[in-house]
């Protein structure tokens, strides 16, 4: 039998007939399957994007506003998406590239996927730096990562409408309270993350200055955002406001490098 491109990805018998697929964490079939799932999810995003743009036009939202929403959301996403890519690289050592590619493109956040993979690998007596060679262990890790965070997938299609209905009722009963309620939710979330930034600050009293790095990074981000806001008003440059969040994000992330060299 002529050796084809994917000859080594199969187990063959003495007559060179294919018996089964030879397992590898980077087997081409895994990339094909993952590619299909990601294409479906991409299709969902494109569908909702088109639907929302159409509705935005019907509602009389200016084309310029829609265009700016698209461009600044795209620019804003690049830096966090690259950090997600770092997660793919980290997990690829044990799991190959296909599985982390799927898990981090769909559903998972890097914090969860790493924890779930580590839990499964530890239970199997492996470390995160050893490539899995046993297909049984690979599918075990895959099941743990899939089942562990499936709550959103299972419940969201069935409860979203009810929760939204409840929110609309609040807004309809008292419009002002509806707005305050929403702002309060955003602020509650932001305050939790601001608190998290300070979680290692008390280490300073034990001589550890590392805990100050996130605080300084957050301050840089806040200052850049404030400067962008002020400049956009003074110079009447709306574009500055449009890209203020991506700018504050990237400049603050870059500032982490000298801060870590200094305090880390």
């Amino acid at each position, binding site marked *: 039998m002529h050796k084809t491109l994917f000859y080594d990805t199969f187990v063959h018998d003495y007559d060179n007939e294919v018996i089964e697929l030879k397992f590898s964490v980077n087997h081409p079939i895994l990339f094909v399957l993952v590619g299909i799932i990601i294409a479906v999810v991409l299709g969902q995003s*494109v569908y909702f994007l088109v639907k929302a743009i159409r509705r935005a036009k019907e509602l009389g939202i200016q084309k310029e506003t829609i265009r700016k929403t698209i461009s600044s959301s795209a620019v804003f996403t690049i830096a966090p998406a690259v950090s997600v890519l770092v997660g793919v690289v980290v997990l690829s050592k044990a799991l190959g590239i296909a599985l982390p590619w799927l898990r981090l493109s769909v559903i998972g956040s890097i914090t969860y996927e790493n*924890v779930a993979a580590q839990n499964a690998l530890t239970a199997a007596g492996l470390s995160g730096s050893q490539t899995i060679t046993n297909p049984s262990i690979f599918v075990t890790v895959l099941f743990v990562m899939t089942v562990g965070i499936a709550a959103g997938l299972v419940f969201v*299609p069935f409860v979203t409408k009810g929760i939204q209905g409840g929110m609309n009722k609040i807004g309809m009963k008292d419009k002002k309270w509806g707005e305050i*309620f*929403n702002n309060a939710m955003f*602020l509650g979330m*932001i305050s939790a993350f601001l608190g998290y930034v300070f979680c290692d600050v008390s280490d300073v009293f034990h001589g550890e200055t590392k805990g100050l790095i996130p605080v300084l990074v957050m301050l840089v981000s806040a200052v850049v955002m404030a400067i962008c806001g002020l400049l956009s008003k003074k110079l009447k440059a709306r574009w500055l406001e449009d890209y203020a969040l991506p700018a504050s994000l990237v400049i603050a992330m870059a500032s982490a490098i000298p801060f870590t060299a200094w305090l880390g």
Partner: protein
Amino acid sequence: MNEKRNLSYMDSVHRTGRIWGIIVGIIILLFPFIVCLIFQTQPDYKVLVKGILATAPMYWAVGIVEIFTYVPMLGAGGTYLSFVTGNISNLKLPCAIDAMERAKVKATSEEGEVISTIAIAVSSIVTTLVIVIGVICIVPLTPVLESDVLKPAFDMILPALFGGLAVVFISKNLKLSIAPIVLMLILFIFVPALNAGTVGIMVPVGVIFTVIVARILYKKGWL
């Protein structure tokens, strides 16, 4: 007439959102079974139970609370997309909040709904494309992404993100901001168990606390 059209758009978002959610959910949940069939293997059930017990109870609890916390903020379309594409608190929600702020639309309005959906859909597409490019170029990119020089930048994404967002929201809601920020600072500084791994649990706590404070301030006429 306008209200009828609004309702029909929202109904259509919910209907299609459900259909997409169920299809994508089934595909994702089937994936491990298909891999088992292809490689003619089964999970190691002992390891599976151990792994699931170590992961699922906490993440299912957090996941359920997250649904109730994030759905009102993300809007309908944004919710159906975000819970499939993930990275909600560190990407999709900040992206949607920023887009609604810049477009000067209220999250509770239909304008807010469509702007949030556009922002989240674009963010999901860009994330997918960045990862695809990264996966294709993973060999040359790995040393760059794992370099010791860049690592601190990627580790600090949350402080870098929420510093900017905080300025926008605190400046607009100064009175309402004080109590939740003070509470969270006290909790995170003085409770050692609260850290990067547990911040997700504290989001609903922060949200519920802030809504209660907002209600009290509103009733007293201070907002």
